């Protein structure tokens, strides 16, 4: 077993490369002028600038949270550059996209052209802070679906932005979301009109590619009455020596009878395998509101990257009979640290939530599940089922579980299950004796452990997730 761990530790980050594209970059530092500059570059309406400044002033009064079970050196927010954009802009088709960029996607195995032709997935490619390619737009327009870069939505649909921006994650919500609200440069916006089932799965690939440039993405998805959308987010990042801060905010709004499925596969650079140096800090605020009755929001995440993960995709179940789900697989290896989980806030009657969390720790990885379930006073007959399972590979890693349960209505039904297991030598030996190599055995056991979550992913993502787990445990042969 110690051999397995060593091999896992030795594994290089497969997607570590840098694309050489010229960037427009603001000098490092943060003040109101920087925010005004960002807003001016983006040609934003007045309400956006005001909102940014309000967020910034709020942020100045806040302190970085320290309650998470993660350790990292102090971040110098004045050393970060808050705007970076590829020089070439306003592209109409893939032909105009920088060949280097297309090559980057090819290296990642996600060529836009192939996706466009074969898989029927519309891709809003976010490369650093400005979106440079959008596909399948006309097909979506036919159904009245809006899927565009956030900055474009600010120009073309300001009334929707003004109505929904900050309606789920207020500008004052937390330290990182306040910072995001002040300086975010782009992201994605989705609006599904009444009664429309979005004809394709929507997908965005994020990629961090400029040194010392914090990434502050903003995603807003609104599903109007009776609509449905499945949104996929996946990301990889090139190898870097310096820590890169990523503080994204994702807001989901589901109206009456609407359903939003949000899936993430995250594989950012986790840091040097031997020292832990240089990985991404992923401090993300993700939250959805089931605003009216029978709404449903489902989060599925597969987290294998980042040096530090601080992430709690949550649901506010306001509408009666609304449903919140959280399915998560998180892998921490080498020096990775993750403090992740969810929060389910039951406000409406007959609201229901399900939490399935699978944590895998290997190497010196430290992982914490932090989950909150709140049943508020008026949430008659609310139900929650939580299951959090941890798997340990090796003897130097750790798994920690902090479930918080707050019930204020006696008709609530709560179930909580938790387990901790390890990949035993006896299991490996048993597989070996049947002719299955140690590497395949580890992947078999890990995939078996994660199965309940993987089956919630859209098909192509499930395959990618399984591949990612295999890559993360590659070289595991003793």
């Amino acid at each position, binding site marked *: 077993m110690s051999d397995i761990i060593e091999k896992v530790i030795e594994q290089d980050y497969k997607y570590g490369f840098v694309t050489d594209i010229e960037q427009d970059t603001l000098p490092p530092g943060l003040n109101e002028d920087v925010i005004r500059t960002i807003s001016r570059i983006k040609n934003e309406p007045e309400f956006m600038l005001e909102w940014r400044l309000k967020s910034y002033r709020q942020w100045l009064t806040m302190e970085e949270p320290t309650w998470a079970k993660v350790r990292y050196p102090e971040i110098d927010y004045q050393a970060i550059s808050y705007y970076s954009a590829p020089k070439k802009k306003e592209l109409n088709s893939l032909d105009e996209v920088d060949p280097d960029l297309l090559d980057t996607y090819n290296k990642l195995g996600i060529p836009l052209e192939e996706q466009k032709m074969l898989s029927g997935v519309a891709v809003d490619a976010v490369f650093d802070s400005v979106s440079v390619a959008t596909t399948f737009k006309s097909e979506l327009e036919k159904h009245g679906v809006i899927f565009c870069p956030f900055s474009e939505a600010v120009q073309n649909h300001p009334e929707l932005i003004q109505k929904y921006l900050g309606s789920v994650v207020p500008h004052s919500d937390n330290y990182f979301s306040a910072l995001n609200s002040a300086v975010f440069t782009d992201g994605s916006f989705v609006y599904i009109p009444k009664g429309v089932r979005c004809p394709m799965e929507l997908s965005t690939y994020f990629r961090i590619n400029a040194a010392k440039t914090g990434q502050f993405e903003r995603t807003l998805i609104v599903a109007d009455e009776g609509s449905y959308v499945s949104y996929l987010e996946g990301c990889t990042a090139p190898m870097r020596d310096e820590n890169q801060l990523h503080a994204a905010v994702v807001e989901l709004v589901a109206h009456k009878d609407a359903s939003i499925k949000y899936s993430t596969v995250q594989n950012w650079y986790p840091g040097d395998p031997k020292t832990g140096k240089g990985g991404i800090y992923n401090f993300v605020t993700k939250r959805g509101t089931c605003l009216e009755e029978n709404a449903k929001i489902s989060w599925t995440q597969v987290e294998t990257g980042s040096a530090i993960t601080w992430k709690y995709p949550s649901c506010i179940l306001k509408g009666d009979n609304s449903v919140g789900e959280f399915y998560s697989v998180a892998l921490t290896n080498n020096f990775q640290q993750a403090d992740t989980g969810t929060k389910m806030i039951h406000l409406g009657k007959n609201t229901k939530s399900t939490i399935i969390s699978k944590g895998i720790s290997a190497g010196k990885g430290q992982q914490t599940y932090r989950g909150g379930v709140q049943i508020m006073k008026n949430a008659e007959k609310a139900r929650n089922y939580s299951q959090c399972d941890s798997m340990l590979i090796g003897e130097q890693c750790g798994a920690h579980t902090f479930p918080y349960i707050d019930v204020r209505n006696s008709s609530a039904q709560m179930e909580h299950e938790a387990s901790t*297991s390890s990949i*035993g*030598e*006896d*299991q490996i*030996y*048993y*597989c*070996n*004796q*049947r*002719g*299955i*190599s*140690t590497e*395949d055995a580890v992947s*078999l*056991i890990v*995939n*078996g*452990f*994660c*199965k309940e979550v993987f089956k919630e992913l859209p098909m192509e993502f499930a395959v990618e997730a399984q591949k990612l787990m295999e890559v993360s445990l590659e070289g595991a042969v003793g």
Partner: protein
Amino acid sequence: MLVIKNLHVSINNKKILKGINLTINAGELHAIMGRNGSGKSTLAHVIAGKDGYEIEGDVLFNGESLLDKSPEERALAGIFMSFQYPVVIPGVNNTYFLKAALNAKLKANGQSELDAMDFLALIKEKIKLVEMDESYLNRAVNDGFSGGEKKRNEILQLLTLEPTFAILDETDSGLDIDALKIIANGVNQYRNSERGILAITHYQRLLDHMKPDIVHAMIDGKIVKTGDMSLAKELEEKGYSFLLYTN
């Protein structure tokens, strides 16, 4: 087929096996009988390649030494062990596990791997031989199986993987008489002139249904007597202690 030469095995400097010599030819079923702690299971694991033993002597399979080979190399060479305590693997589908094992073998032999449909057709035939319900195929490997179900699952694997040499490590322990017959039937289906079997057991009752060619009695890490089925009967009647005085 399998030749064991002057095998001495220790764990943490404690001697378990003290000079085992044994030759099993293709087509033969050998039984090793002995009390708890006599070293029978250690012998099985040493052949299968479990880690953690200090070994002297040699174990040859079809003329090649096994001792430098990993457990999976031995498995792919044709050695199978039915575990005394089959291991539970939560979350891993029984069918998927067996398919992975069979395809690993086919791949190693340069044969084409079976797809899910073909494998399912095969496994549905095999599971009838051990009289298990098909629902076991969709459960996690040995998870929540009773003792008898686990042992039948081992024999199902034996019949599916069709190794050339099978070690049955106390496959009869914990079985009722019906299950015992099913297991013995399964083993008899497996048995042919090209395959060798080493059955390890405390009791004669499994052997009644399997009819071994040769029976060995093992005491304190040594084979003290070798004979035919009548030896098994004698051991059952008189207990192992009689051997201590007759040798």
